[in-house]
Structures are given as structure tokens and as C-alpha cells.
């Protein structure tokens, strides 16, 4: 387990380094300097600005500096919003985005599993069809469409929830709903399929023959095994929730990280684009690692296999 962890960790660092390198050179291959658009700057001023942001140095030196700063977790200053650093922006935006993402994932997992289990237990019954219809619709409606629909119905036509911003639990309902529908649908479908498969296994028959209560059979014996495929997709689901936050934060005017990211794209604020990309990628890769490790913990067969391989 230990050497496996080290190997995975090394792979993670390499992936992250590749992302950083690719982003860095992509960003710097864009023609023109970030300062010379629209307003005409004095040449001396521009030189000074470039010197201040070290843009006058050779590319490879800039790359070295960036990596050196990054090791100290310093993502550099913003070019368009002077006096703010990328770290400040992330420090302010991340807690909000994290809250949104975390609750969304929680809602999606809980409701998805519930729907999936109900559908599997009532296979080909009305409940099954209802649950799977919800799931197919959930997959088909993009999150930004869902968000606009929710605003129109539950905030404008029937003003039950506030339209935007992020201050009280009531404000969180619509964004979380909009963001959670897609992942919930995917989890529900996966849970249903693997639950149906597990329920036909011999050990479930044994459990039934032993006279265990249905609740115990479902939750202790069936669900635990049925959830393994669900765990494997959690990483990519987290990724889709993460990118979903950009657009949801924009629609609901939530002051999260996604807002800085989208703003920085529109203003071509390269250090901020780079910083947020690196940060997002790091979180995602970390999530994938956690999912992998969790998988090993949940499924004892995988651990055994690894030991045998050694």
C-alpha cells in the first residue's frame, strides 16, 4: 500500500507539473503584451510595467521564477487588478466555491443513491420508470439551462427563493439544485445498474435465506458492493461540478473562484488564468487520488491483488 501510494503521489506531481508547464507556455505564446490594448501607454511606462512583472526577461527565466514561486505557493500578482495577488483572489473565492461544490456533491450523492436504490428495488415498476425518467431528464438538461429555469420558476414567477448572491442558506438552494441535477442523475443510473446486478448474486440469496431483514440486506450487503462503480466516477463528477461552478457562479452572481476565473478570461489577465487553472487542476488531481485510495479501502479485493503483485 505504501509504495503504491508513493507511486501515485509521484504520478500526481508529474501530471501537475505537465499542466503547469503546458499552461505557462500556452499563455506566453499569445502574441502581444497584456498592457498594450485599447489605451496607448507611454513606451517608458510600458517598459517599467513589463520590468515590474518580469515580462522583459527570457521566457525560460520567467518559467523558472514561476516554478520557484509556485513551490512557495505564491501564484503571483494580478495584472489587470493591480494591488491584488492571485493568492488573495483564491483566498476569497475558494471558501465560497468550496461550500457550493461540497454541498452540491453531498446532495447529488445522497439523492442519486436513493433514487437508484429505489429504482432497483422496484425494478420495472412505476417507481423505477419515474426515477429513471428523472435521471434521463437530469442528464439531458445542461446546468445553465436548469439554473435559468429554476430562476424563472422559483424566483421570478413564484418568489420563494432569492434570485442571486450567496448570503444565507435560502440563497444556496437554487444554485445547489441547478448544479446537482446532472451528477445526481448519473449516480442514480449507475447505482440502479450495479444494484440490479448485485441483487441477483448468491450471497443476497443466502442473506435472504438466513432471514435477514430487507433493510439490512439492502444497506449492509447489497449497497456496499453496489456502490463501488459509483465511487469510481466520483472523480470525474467532481470535475464536472467544478467546471459547472463557473457558469452557476456567473448566473447567480456568487462571489466564488469561478467568477474570478471567467472574469480573468474575459480581461485576458494571464497570471490569474494560470493561477486558477493550476489551482483547479491541483484540486482535481487530489480528488482523483483520494477516490483511488478510497476505492482500495472499500474493496478489499484490490488491496489483496496489490500485495500479491509484490
Amino acid at each position: 500500500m505504501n509504495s503504491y501510494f508513493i507511486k501515485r503521489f509521484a504520478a500526481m506531481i508529474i501530471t501537475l507539473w505537465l499542466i503547469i508547464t503546458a499552461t505557462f507556455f500556452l499563455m506566453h505564446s499569445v502574441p502581444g503584451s497584456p498592457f498594450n490594448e485599447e489605451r496607448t501607454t507611454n513606451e517608458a511606462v510600458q517598459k517599467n510595467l513589463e520590468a515590474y512583472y518580469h515580462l522583459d526577461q527570457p521566457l525560460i527565466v520567467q518559467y523558472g521564477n514561476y516554478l520557484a514561486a509556485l513551490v512557495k505557493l505564491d501564484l503571483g500578482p494580478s495584472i489587470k487588478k493591480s494591488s491584488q495577488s492571485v493568492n488573495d483572489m483564491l483566498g476569497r473565492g475558494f471558501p465560497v466555491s468550496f461550500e457550493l461544490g461540497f454541498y452540491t456533491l453531498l446532495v447529488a450523492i445522497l439523492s442519486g443513491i436513493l433514487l437508484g436504490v429505489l429504482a432497483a428495488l422496484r425494478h420495472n415498476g412505476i417507481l423505477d420508470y419515474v426515477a429513471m425518467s428523472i435521471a434521463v431528464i437530469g442528464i439531458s438538461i445542461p446546468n445553465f439551462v436548469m439554473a435559468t429555469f429554476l430562476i424563472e420558476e422559483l424566483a421570478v414567477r413564484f418568489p420563494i427563493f432569492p434570485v442571486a448572491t450567496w448570503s444565507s442558506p435560502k440563497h444556496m438552494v437554487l444554485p445547489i439544485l441547478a448544479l446537482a441535477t446532472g451528477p445526481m442523475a448519473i449516480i442514480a443510473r449507475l447505482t440502479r445498474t450495479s444494484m440490479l446486478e448485485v441483487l441477483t448474486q448468491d450471497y443476497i440469496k443466502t442473506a435472504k435465506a438466513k432471514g435477514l431483514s430487507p433493510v439490512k440486506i439492502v444497506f449492509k450487503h447489497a449497497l456496499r458492493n453496489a456502490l463501488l462503480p459509483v465511487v469510481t466516477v466520483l472523480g470525474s463528477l467532481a470535475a464536472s461540478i467544478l467546471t459547472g461552478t463557473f457558469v452557476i457562479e456567473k448566473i447567480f452572481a456568487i462571489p466564488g473562484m469561478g467568477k474570478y476565473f471567467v472574469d480573468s478570461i474575459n480581461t485576458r489577465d494571464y497570471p490569474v488564468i494560470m493561477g486558477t487553472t493550476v489551482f483547479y487542476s491541483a484540486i482535481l488531481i487530489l480528488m482523483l487520488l483520494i477516490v483511488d485510495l478510497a476505492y482500495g479501502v472499500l474493496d478489499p479485493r484490490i488491496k489483496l491483488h496489490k500485495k500479491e503483485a509484490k
Partner: protein
Amino acid sequence: MELRKHENRNISPDVPDAWFVPKARNQTDAEAVIRPSLSYWKDSWLRLLKNKLAMAGLVFLALLTLLAIFGPMISPHSVEKQTLTLQNLPPSSKYWFGTDDLGRDVFTRTCYGARISLFVGLMAALIDFIVGVVYGGFSGYKGGRTDNLMMRFVEILYGLPYLLVVILVMVVIGPGLTTIILALSITGWVGMARIVRGQVLQIKNYEFVLASKTFGTNTARIIRKNLLPNTMGPIIVQMTLTIPSAIFAEAFLSFIGLGIQAPHASWGVMANDGLSTILSGYWWRLFFPTLFISLTMFAFNVLGDGLQDALDPKLRR
């Protein structure tokens, strides 16, 4: 069975021996095939036909394609011409889906958006198909160290957040239709490559491949004639699922302002424009593009599900 009946004969005296008459062996029928011989594709097609939801999806997509091709032609209104006297008209017999804030016909623009969405989806799926099949097929067929190395690379790409990469590429190259397709293809083929590789790894060990090899068939022909046709099922399913995710990505990018640029119409652009006027009550400007996005995604998803069931040889009855 027959033997046991003879043994048990004496156990129940109520049953006279005369009841047991051996059935005459019908020589002609014994070898007959009851089921009509169907090829894999024909069988799958028949099974797909029975799936009502998948067929509804297929019909909708066919209609949408017709609308995308002929809609802008038959519509009397122009996609880009602005008529400022006709701002924000509600749907009527003249403007079926109403008009937008620049007096452009929403129906014509929706048809035009269908063109862009379908084009992006099909192109992304096609590129994924070509790159994924070549890469995955080669990797799986070669096996060993080559496979290991090629799959390491795929794993790294797989770990990258898909939309983040797309956004980065859009920022660097600049928004536009070609860039969207290019950006989607950079990481999109990875899933296809993994599926093809897995299938090829499995199939290449089967006897009929060995037989081909014994006859001296060259590698390219084995991949083309033996391996690919047998991996086609999962490939087609993967393609039908790639298309809606590409359509979603285009709408998403256009929605955050990185996709199709004005004055071109795309569903994402129209939805974004419509959202800003939602409080003014111009519901049709948001409703129609979002309806079309959702219906198209729905159609592709149910069609993909149906194909998955239809193409699975295990479900063949």
C-alpha cells in the same frame, strides 16, 4: 429423461404402459433453424426498433437535421439582419418563435444554432473516432511495453479537467467554431482510445484471430477485418455519448462568452442573451434555445442508451 420414465413406470400402477409411445423422430426438422438467420447488425437494428424511446430520439434527431439544413432556407427572415423596429416581438404567425432585441427572427436563429450544434457534435465525434480507434487499436494490438507507455500518456490526459483544457485552448487560440472543435478533440479522444484498447486486448486472443494469423494475414488487415468489426458496438455507443457532451460543451462555452461570436447564432449564445432579459418578460428568447439544447441532449442520450442495449450481444435472444 426418457430413460427415467421407463424406470418409474411400475411405481404408479394407474398409468398404463400404452400411454408411453416414443415420439417418432422427425429427420427433416432436426437440423432446421427455427429462428431466421440474422446478421449482428440486423438483429441489433430490430432490437432498436422495439425500443420506443430510442426511436423517438432517432426521429427527433432526423427532424432536427432536416430543420438545420432546410430551416434557414425556407424561413423568409435573415439570420443576421437587424430590424430595430421589430424588437422583442412575442411569438406570432409571422415570427414563430418571436424576435430578439435586435429584431432578428428567433426561429431562423434557432435553426442556424441547430446547424452549429450538430456540426460541432458530429465533427468532435468523428475526430474522436479516428484518433481514438487508431491510437487505442494500435496500443491494444501491440501490447507489452508499447501499450504500457501509450496508456501512461492517456492516463495523464485523462486526469486533466476536460472543460478547463478546452477553456485554456479557447483563450489562447481565440474563440470560433474551428477552435471549439479543435479544443474538444485535444482531450476528447482519450475515452474512445481506452474503450477500443480494452476491446482489442480481449479480442486479439480469440481463436479466429489466431486462425487469421496462421493464414499469414498482415496486421493492418487483421485490425480492419477481425478486430474493428467486433469492437464497433461499444465504439458506436461511445460516439452517441460524445455528441451530446460536445454539444453541451459548445453551448457552455458560448454561454460564458468563449464560443461562437456575434453575429453568429448558437443555442448557447442565444440562451446567454435571453438570460439577461429574463426579468423583462421576454421568455421566448430564453425558452426556445434552451428547449432545443435539452431536447437534443435528451434525444442523443436515449438513443445512446437504446444502442447500448441493442448492440450488446449478451442481450441477444
